[in-house]
């Protein structure tokens, strides 16, 4: 039984994801095709979201730009959650010196707001998608580690873990075969929140011009470009912005719905 909030969220996120998925195999126009006769064309049947300052079709660019946003967000969450789960699991389960070292390091990293940490890493490794994933992944790992550690700490005293131990299961088996599936509800909502933060951070960094580099389209980059024409062509920034909001809203509502289901308000 899924809550209504979750359903609405899934529907909104679904629409955006569908748009982006379709964009993987087909876009109405080539997103990089420049057509001088269509500069700043208003939305029409041929170009549902109009054209930008080079006459490129905005819808096609959103479909491709959204894909880059989603892929970097996925990459970030996979890297961040991967690092976080491993360190969090070891910290929570074994405790002692491992716990102290991992968690003190996590604390120091958590003291950086994640965008700042990402900026440091970009300053060192340069701009680009891989650097973006790397920097945001590292920036997000400590908060995942925190959540996972708490769950492992709570789980390790529970009966099923004790009985698995009595059966002679190895530590690795207990960690990743027994405990990990049992904390999935907490993990999934942490993943959804992380995904949202990653989308927002990617958009912000690309907006600042240090994330995905033009001419590759990205939602943040499109917003930065269209801002110059805000006065004459306000619609140009409304479309990519709306897609960004819908994406974040959809995943946010899904996360809320799961939490309510788990009994937390």
């Amino acid at each position, binding site marked *: 039984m899924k809550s209504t909030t979750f359903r609405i969220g899934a529907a909104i996120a679904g629409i955006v994801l569908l748009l982006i998925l379709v964009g993987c195999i087909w876009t109405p126009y080539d997103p990089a095709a420049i057509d001088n006769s269509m500069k700043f064309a208003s939305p029409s049947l041929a170009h549902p979201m109009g054209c930008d300052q080079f006459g490129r079709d905005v819808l096609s660019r959103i479909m491709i730009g959204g894909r880059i946003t989603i892929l970097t967000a996925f990459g970030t969450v996979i890297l961040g959650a991967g690092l976080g789960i491993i360190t969090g699991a070891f910290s929570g389960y074994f405790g002692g010196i491992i716990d102290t070292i991992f968690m003190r390091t996590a604390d120091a990293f958590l003291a950086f707001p994640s965008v700042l940490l990402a900026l440091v890493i970009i300053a060192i490794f340069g701009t680009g998608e891989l650097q973006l994933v790397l920097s945001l992944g590292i920036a997000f790992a400590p908060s995942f580690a925190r959540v996972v550690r708490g769950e492992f700490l709570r789980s390790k005293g529970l009966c099923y873990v004790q009985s698995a131990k009595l059966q002679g299961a190895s530590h690795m088996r207990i960690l990743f075969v027994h405990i990990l599936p049992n904390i999935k509800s907490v993990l999934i909502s942490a993943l959804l929140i992380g995904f949202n933060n990653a989308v927002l951070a990617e958009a912000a960094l690309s*907006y600042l011009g240090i994330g995905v580099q033009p001419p590759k389209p990205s939602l943040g980059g499109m917003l930065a470009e269209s801002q110059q024409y805000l006065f004459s062509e306000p619609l140009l920034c409304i479309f990519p912005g709306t897609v960004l909001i819908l994406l974040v*809203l959809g995943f946010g509502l899904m996360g809320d719905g799961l939490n309510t289901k788990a009994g937390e308000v």
Partner: protein
Amino acid sequence: MKYALKKLAGMLLALLGVSLILFLAFDLIPGDPATAKLGTNATPERLDALREEMGLNDPIFIRYIRWLTDFIRGDFGESYSYSMPVREMIGEKLLISITMTIMAFIMVLLISIPVGLFCARHKGGKIDTSICAVGQILMSIPPFFSGILITLLFGIVLGLFTPGEFISYDKSISGFIGSLFFPALSIAIPKAAMAVKLLRSSLITELSLDYPRTAYSRGNSDWQVLLHHVLKNALIPVLTFFGMALADILTGSIIVEQVFGIPGLGRILLTSIMNRDYPVVQAIIMLLAAVVIVVNFTVDIIYRKLDPRIT
């Protein structure tokens, strides 16, 4: 007292950890500060002399200690690109960013507390439901896009301010505050929406406890119960959020500055990242992280004051 000391030790440790990470991160970068300063045409002898002068040949630990003590004394090093002390470059800019952060934070408080109280008072009503729905959407707006929308609405459609105009504080204090008002608002709105949601649910949880019922039975009105009995308790869990929000607003201000064309820390930070002007990046990030850490420490202390049960 013991609690405060423990937290103080934690804060100092965090500051040390952050400074160590920052120092090591920038030390690992391939490249040589001496070459960066003199350019690639410099003779090896001059490079060697400068390296010796800058102390680059010393062991890493010594260099860290030196960097840290200089930093604490307020000497943030020298910019590679502009050959001037970093401190002079960022002093004024820091003031702009901090003023904007404080303004945005006050806005978050001024919006979220009354609206949160109203929603909890009229829980489930039409207005509450619509505020919650609108809030959910506002929460999903990235601060730079809310900045663009505000420029569009207040700047271009309503003509309340000139987009891209910035008045320095030494010209006119009120003009300075005025030109930071809309940027601050665009950071504040998404955060305020989130704060309303948290405060509302915290107030509703508190209202379902026994003590509000006792307060009602003594003849208090709805608002009296909310303001004098429930609000203080309900604010405790929200306080952590306010602490984190302040950090987010500070980093958000760097981004929003770009939207409104404000010459604050954000612009310097970005150009320095592009120019690989590491001393500037290092100093700005260290300062911002230090502000965040000190704020979190303060929140912990206030938290304890409000709720002595916390250990």
